[in-house]
């Protein structure tokens, strides 16, 4: 059974359908990239996967013992977070919140898990630093550590490289790829950057207010829609207008 099975799902905001015809499966260990233009329904689908939104029709099921709360999430940063006074360690350990339940404070185990995840992502030396003093790339790796504290099964990444410089972008893609290969964690990523998506991901889901492609990345580049979108994505500055 698949980790996530989406059958004929559609999502609507205030009665207006944003995206429909969603039929796909995510298997354990997959690295799925959801691509599409702005407003094509990517973020809406992600909310659905996180259980923050119910499908208007169809179903999204989780399997293989994946609980909806076992999905680690890397959200887009809000402006309020950019100047939030919190240390790196405080941010990372907050990912352990739901393993701890209602009990007050964090246990020694929680601390150890937080430290291990920071080490895995190479941000252990920053743990006493203030989150707002870090570079964009460092911040994303800290937030990835937090997401890993919440799960070891599945990560959902919402435009993780937006706002990063080219070097930090490549580095973050490599970090995500090695996470996927080394730990076997399932990754679902939303991205504008379709070139990197086909380079790193194993599966591609292309949305255009409906599902226009779902399958292996290698197949995607052969399709018309894939070629067209890749062509656009290769325009100067990589803009996907």
């Amino acid at each position, binding site marked *: 059974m698949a980790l996530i099975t989406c059958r004929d799902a559609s999502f609507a905001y205030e009665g207006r359908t944003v995206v429909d015809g969603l039929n796909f499966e995510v298997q354990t260990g997959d690295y799925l990239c959801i691509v599409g233009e702005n407003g094509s329904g990517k973020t809406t689908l992600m909310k659905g996967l996180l259980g*923050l939104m119910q499908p208007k029709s169809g179903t999204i099921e989780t399997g293989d013992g994946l609980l909806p709360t076992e999905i680690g*999430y890397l*959200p887009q940063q809000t402006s309020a977070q950019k100047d*939030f*006074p*919190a*240390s790196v360690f405080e941010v990372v350990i907050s*990912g352990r919140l739901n393993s*701890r339940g209602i009990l*007050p404070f964090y246990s020694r185990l929680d601390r150890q898990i937080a430290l291990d995840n920071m080490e895995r992502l190479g941000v252990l030396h920053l743990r006493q630093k203030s989150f707002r003093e870090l570079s964009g790339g460092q911040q994303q790796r800290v937030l990835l550590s937090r997401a890993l504290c919440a799960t070891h099964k599945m990560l959902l990444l919402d435009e993780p490289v937006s706002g990063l410089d080219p070097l930090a972008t490549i580095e973050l893609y490599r970090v995500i790829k090695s996470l996927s290969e080394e730990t076997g964690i399932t990754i679902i990523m939303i991205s504008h950057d379709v070139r990197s998506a086909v380079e790193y991901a194993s599966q591609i889901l292309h949305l255009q207010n409906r599902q226009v492609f779902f399958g292996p990345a290698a197949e995607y580049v052969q399709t018309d829609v894939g070629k067209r979108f890749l062509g656009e994505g290769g325009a100067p500055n990589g803009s996907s207008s």
Partner: protein
Amino acid sequence: MDLLLEMFSFTFMIRAVVVGLLVSLCASLLGVSLVLKRYAMIGTGLGNVGFASMVSATAFGLSHLALAISMPVVVVAAFLLLRVSESSKIKGDSAVALISASSLAVGVIIVSQTTGLTLHVCSAMFGSILAMTQADLQLSVGLSIVVLVLFVLFYKQLFAVTYDENFAKATGTRIQVYKSLLAILTAVTVVLGMRMMGALLISSLIIFPALSAIRVCKSFLSVVITSAVISVACFFVGIVLSFGYDLPTGASVVGINLVVFLLLSGVNLLRQGGKI
């Protein structure tokens, strides 16, 4: 020293200091979350709702129950403010302005039709340390302790909800529960502090210490602790000054808080200047 001895020879001053310190502590802790979540104006809104309910209680001859009547009204208002500011129809700051102004208007109409603008109304707006009775003292101490205990017990949830609501929600935290908790605790603190600080000044007790602490601290825990220390210290200095120089208590406390805020902002500027 003589001044302090003289001050503590008055029972009403001891009451005022005890309640004031506890309320300052609660307000500063909750203030960190409220300021960082951009909910700081809620304090002002709740202060005005509290004013309306308190003068109404007095107008109907129930002044001895003013605290007990205001509490549920302000708690409901806090819920409303949170709910309304989340709905897409009316955004946060407008919602607060709406509720603040209308409750103030209701309060003023009730006052003008009953007692008129008396000294009592003035003290409800700007605070008075004489208003504290023995029963108020007991209620204030009890509720402040409840606020403090809940804050410590749910510290990590409050951090998670303050820092990143979306992440907390996605990983299964029932954020509505903790936001409501924050609203209730804030409402209780506002009502407790309103007598002394005044409806118009109580919000500063929530906002100033947190703002000052955020200027100089790097971690959330240090912001919380610094905010608490600043708040308690400013209250104490403020009330001593107000006693010594016969100044209004609420305004003196706010004045001291402002001085600390400006000082720490200066420190922060110097630090940043040094870095570049």
